[in-house]
């Protein structure tokens, strides 16, 4: 068969590298190009918000253009994570639920922010009251989109914890719970304009971003390990070195 000429794992590696490339764009775009993260304060008066838009004008317009180009790469990442659940002994319900939730999450959780800030930066001379509304809309839609990530992480966690194919270690299941909890503690950012729970606060932003960054790094490595161990069977996933299987 002609298929034998190819690395049987090339589709998985393609998805994994897409994931790596995506996050290598994602973090620099938010932290370096647009400089919208760490986020500005919700407590600022409108004059300061307008000034913030002026200072970030070009970065927003270029940086989010890049997001519009690459946001679709998330579907490859979600596909790979869904695949990890198909490799488990659990029902396909988990994989499909995760796939749908995370596919839809990109719109309220990412693209609305990019669209709103692009609209805000588009006309610096716009009525300041409206710029203030766009400012709130952008940051609250981004920080305040919680459920898709909350339930999505819990679905992955539940799949990992009930899986009998040893696709991921159980501690990684609990790490998903940590990621889910970050979506719980950001809820007060819909209420507070200052303090640790505001959208730029030490808990709602700093703590959450550290957990999310760590979680992302870990799941990238976990997925890499899964691909290395993949044997395309349906039973328990072998360890990397086959003679060490009994060690677990």
């Amino acid at each position, binding site marked *: 068969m*002609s*298929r034998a000429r*190819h690395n*049987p*794992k*090339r*589709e*998985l590696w*393609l*998805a994994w590298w897409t994931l790596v490339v995506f996050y290598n764009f994602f973090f620099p775009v938010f932290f370096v190009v647009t400089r919208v993260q760490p986020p500005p304060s919700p407590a600022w008066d409108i004059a300061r918000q307008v000034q913030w838009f002026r200072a970030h004008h070009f970065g*927003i*317009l*270029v940086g*989010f*253009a*890049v*997001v*519009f*180009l*690459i*946001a*679709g*790469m*998330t*579907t*490859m990442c*979600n*596909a*790979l994570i*869904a*695949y990890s659940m*198909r490799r488990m002994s659990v029902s*396909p319900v988990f*994989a499909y639920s995760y*796939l*749908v939730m*995370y*596919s*839809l999450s*990109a*719109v309220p959780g990412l*693209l*609305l922010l*990019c*669209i*709103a800030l*692009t*609209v805000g*930066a*588009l*006309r610096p001379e*716009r*009525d300041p009251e*409206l710029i203030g509304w*766009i400012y709130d809309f952008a940051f609250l839609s981004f920080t305040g989109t919680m459920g898709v990530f909350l339930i999505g992480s819990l679905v992955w966690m539940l799949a990992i914890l009930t899986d009998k194919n040893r696709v991921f270690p159980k501690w990684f299941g609990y790490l998903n719970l940590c990621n889910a909890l970050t979506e719980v503690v950001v809820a007060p950012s819909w209420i507070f304009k200052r303090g640790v729970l505001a959208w730029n606060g030490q808990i709602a932003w700093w703590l959450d971003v550290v957990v999310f960054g760590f979680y992302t790094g870990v799941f990238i490595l976990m997925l890499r390990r899964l691909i290395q161990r993949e044997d*395309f069977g*349906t039973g328990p996933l072998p360890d990397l070195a086959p003679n060490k299987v009994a060690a677990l």
Partner: protein
Amino acid sequence: MSDRGDNEAPGRRVRLRRIDGELILLWTLPAVAIIWIAAFVLFPGFTPPMSPTMPAEQVAAFYRDNQWGVRYSMILFNWFGVGLVPLLILIVMQIRRMAHRTPIFAYAMLGCVAGGPTLFLVANVCWLLAAFRPERKPELTQMFNDFGWITFTTLVPFLIAQSVILALAIYFDEESRPIFNRWVGHFNLLVAAALVPAAFVGLALAGPLAWDGALSFWLKNIAIGVWIVVMGVAVGQAVYRERAEYRQRGEELVSA
């Protein structure tokens, strides 16, 4: 959907599944295309595309003068904006028939399907809102108009992704018995490239990058239109070929 293990058997391309309804869905496509073209022409903001340099008063006047045109066309788009989803799912079904080792491409494609229509509906709601009370403060109408146009122009992420994913899926398919010809893959990469400039729409209020410009409006929308026609035909051919194989297989089974 069973997608583990069924890539192994040589007979997987004639897998027993009910494909007759697919033709009905496929043939809704010309109707959807005609409705889209009608709605496109009916929307006064597209013929010609509204300029981003219009002052707020002029934008408000536009919605006052064209209130009914905006409503008719955008209600049509609201009804049929998702009309393309069956075509995209038909593509997912064809990707599943390809000689891949994993369902990754089908999953990724499935993840793209709803993204484009969702963003389009956001734009659609903004335009309808602007027309709902055109007597509102002109700055507010202009803001809804900006949201509508920026969302409509930058709805490319999932469209780019689905073209690239489909192209890769085709390149990863078996060369001797391809589901789609290679040129369909090349064509999809070309369409993805044509959608790229629209992402940069915020950078200019006039010229080719502006939302009414040659790249962000004409190139992007023509590319989408051509993609729908070409993929409609390509998917149609694949579905008919699949049916022929299915029938042939059935006859073989009967004579065996």
